[in-house]
């Protein structure tokens, strides 16, 4: 056996204190004992829970087993949604997903990475994006928007579109709506267009921590040069990266990081955006993991038990849209079921990602809603595919798109 994987002390202690109750896989509060862990629900064996992963990590640390392709395959199925860390009272890591992130980093070191991720990272290294698209196409989403380019002129607020929004043409409307709304509210906003680069968050999540650091430094250098103090993004993954991962890596500095839902909510409350048109739909809201559970624990480390998560702003926005009725799903906020796209699962295991999304769509339909709303391009991509898959009549919107309809 090799001694290739050594955990840090608190992670190893955690692995030895798991009682194998699988409590990490079930929700609480209003969704008590509903499934919240996609891989555990899909694959059934205890192994797929955080507790099971802990036993695996313990065996690797103790040198009882070597990391195999099969283990890496299991580890990479996890969508790193953070539900387990929320549910298990034993977890006390600054980064709820520290166990998974640590193991994935070791997988990268040992060359046990799903081929899809290898391709993605090669693309990132070549074109600065996670979509394997030419970097020259990065700014196409914003054509005709007449928005400032922060690499050429000063702006107060930087809107970071993120790789998914930049290169997935079906998702351009969500980024365009966001920028339109900011402009209508009189915000001095700018983008980086073709010079925008990946935040590095997804690279971190799939274990490429070196790439993450490179992009964190690159982004902060660009923002520093442009004099940007506030960053707004529609991408939940990017939000998590800038807000939490950059901070953990000591790269964030004083940058104010806001998700578009926080900023829009602020603008609506300040009456800078007036929602006057009726949007007569019954909508249900899907909480992206990267706006909720994955953000909260880091704030907890700063001395506040709760408060980092973005659960209320999107709901307040939806409730302020005339004519819109919000119908909640059972599994919301801390208990939210992951869309299935997270942690690279959408790239490496698209069938599994689709399965998770279909489960969420069924839950959304059960509320009687005719519209599913989310606030993350990865969720939206995955739900779009799932809706096509089951020929659903459920309509899907990013929250900014709905707000724009109400202006």
């Amino acid at each position, binding site marked *: 056996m090799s001694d290739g994987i050594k955990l840090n*002390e*608190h992670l*190893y*202690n*955690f692995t*030895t*204190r*798991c*009682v*194998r*109750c*699988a*409590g990490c896989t*079930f929700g*609480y*509060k209003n969704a*008590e*004992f509903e499934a919240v862990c996609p891989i555990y629900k899909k*694959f*059934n*064996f*205890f*192994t797929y829970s955080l*507790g*099971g*992963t802990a*036993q*695996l990590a*313990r*065996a690797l640390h*103790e*040198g*009882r*087993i070597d990391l*195999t392709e*099969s*283990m890496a*395959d*299991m580890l990479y199925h996890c969508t790193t949604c953070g539900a387990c860390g*929320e*549910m*298990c*009272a*034993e*977890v*006390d890591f600054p980064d709820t997903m520290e166990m998974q992130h640590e193991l994935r980093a070791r997988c990268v070191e040992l060359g046990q990475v799903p081929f899809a991720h290898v391709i993605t990272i090669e693309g990132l290294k070549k074109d600065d994006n996670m979509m394997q698209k030419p970097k020259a196409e990065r700014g196409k989403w914003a054509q005709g928007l007449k928005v400032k380019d922060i690499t050429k002129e000063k702006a107060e607020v930087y809107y970071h579109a993120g790789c998914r929004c930049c290169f997935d043409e079906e998702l351009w409307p969500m980024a365009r709506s966001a920028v339109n709304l900011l402009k209508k509210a009189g915000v001095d906003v700018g983008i980086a267009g073709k010079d925008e680069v990946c935040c590095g968050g997804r690279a971190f999540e799939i274990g490429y921590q070196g790439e993450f650091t490179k992009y964190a430094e690159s982004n902060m250098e660009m923002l520093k040069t442009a004099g940007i103090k506030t960053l707004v993004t529609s991408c939940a993954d990017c939000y998590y990266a800038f807000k939490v991962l950059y901070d953990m890596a000591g790269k964030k500095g004083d940058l104010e990081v806001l998700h578009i839902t926080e900023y829009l909510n602020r603008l609506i409350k300040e009456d800078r955006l007036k929602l006057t048109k009726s949007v007569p739909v019954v909508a249900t809201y899907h909480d992206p993991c990267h706006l909720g559970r994955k953000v909260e624990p880091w704030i907890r480390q700063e001395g506040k*038990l709760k408060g980092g998560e973005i659960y209320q702003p999107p709901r307040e926005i939806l409730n302020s849209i005339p004519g819109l009725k919000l119908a909640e799903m059972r599994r919301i906020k*801390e208990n939210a079921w992951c869309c299935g796209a997270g942690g690279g699962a959408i790239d490496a295991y698209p069938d599994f990602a689709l399965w998770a999304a279909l489960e969420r769509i069924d839950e959304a339909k059960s509320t009687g809603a005719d519209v599913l709303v989310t606030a993350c391009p990865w969720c939206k991509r995955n739900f779009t595919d799932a809706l096509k898959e089951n020929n659903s009549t459920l309509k899907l919107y990013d929250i900014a798109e709905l707000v724009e309809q109400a202006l």
Partner: protein
Amino acid sequence: MSNVDSLYDELLSTFPEDRISRDEAILTSYATDLSSPPGVATLPTMVVLPKTTDEVKNLLVAANRFKVPVVPMSRGANIAGLALPKKGEVVVDLRLMNKIIEINSDAAYALIEPGVTHQQLSLEAKKKGFINHLPTATGGGSSVANALMRPSGNLSARWDPDPVLALEVVTPSGDIIRTGSASFENAGWRARYGPFPDLTGLFTCSYGTLGIVTKVAVKLIDRGEEERLLVTKFDSFPPALEYMKLIVRRNLADSVTFWNWVWNLFHELMASKLQKLPPEMLKEDQKTPPPGMPFGIASARLSGYKEVIDAQEKTCIRLARELGGDYMPPQEVEATHPGTWAYLNSYFVDGMHLKPGEESTMRAALWLPGWLINAEPSGVLALEKEMWNFAKKEAKPPYMFRALPFNHAREFFFAFVILISGSLEEEKDYMLHLTSAYTNLYHELLAKHGAIMFRFRQDPTYFALTGPYGELLRKIKNIIDPNNIMHPGVNLF
């Protein structure tokens, strides 16, 4: 082709591939639990996830034919190694058999499968006005497994220690046996035995060595119109013991538990966000509480009609005072012991496991090796003395104990727990030392005080002490499981 290979091939015709595995990644997670020392583990040869009784039957018949041993695992929580495999064994993970088949409100029982968790059952029971017999067990743990091993919960004081009524079990020969009233068609699951011998009892505390239990009818307790927590305080253990005996024997409370001050501070720790043990918990003199803190408290659960509870509460308070103790009004407990108050109310009144975020992450820095026994009331004071001597000689502070009338007032459950902070690697030798000391202690306490191990700790010499009783059980085991495929590694037979 080995027997395990043959079994695997055969099972592939019964089980879909996603419910049977020989993959090392899957097997590894079934090799260790909270009790496993660093570096010590044995991988099972296979893990199987049955969903139905018929699947369990097919599995056992095949395993029996190929003489491959199996280890049933209800689901967790696993803290004592009772569901860990030994070399060559197949783990039968029952977590997908997780249906609450019936909650019989009229007869106050639930018919459940082994994968049903305490929290799952408690939630459903609560909806119908009942409390799970096992309110203090871990929310993610299996109600069936705990019920079969005698419950760690506390409603055993008034209503009796055994929540099991009838059950369904599959033996290695493939027989599906229903016991008690369930042995008759359409008679329900309401009775454990009669008019014939108690076959249900044979499968309790058998730890999967006689068959795989696939359904159990467990008793539920009516919550009544009102539920209440009554806390009294005492400056030493003897008057508290008298108090507990009296109020349970005279049916003044559903249950009552005495917690020494260290345990109460542990409750505070659980509810706080403290990252280190408070210094008072580490002080050398563990017999003397910090100033202003009682030596211990007795928490009693009362339920029923308000008028009756009012009278019961009044009487309990009078009895406590006559014995030198005193009443702690809820406001006082909440002010002085907020964590204890939250914990006791959650488990003993609400009957629900604490929720994520309500328990401290401090748990992640602690080990809690425990010494759990049952004894007649007359032996409990001697046990307390023995425990202090043991602690002084063998352990480092903090250590904590609790006691409660278990089987009405005929016996007491006595738990002595040593709290260890620090990493497992650092404390490995100390842990192993305590484990060894515990083994000897169980024998000593039986010899000196008639105190019995609460749950089997895989010590075959302990079973050997039972004489003809054990011999008869061995004969029964040989009839039911002649190839000894049922959990041989647990060392019961």
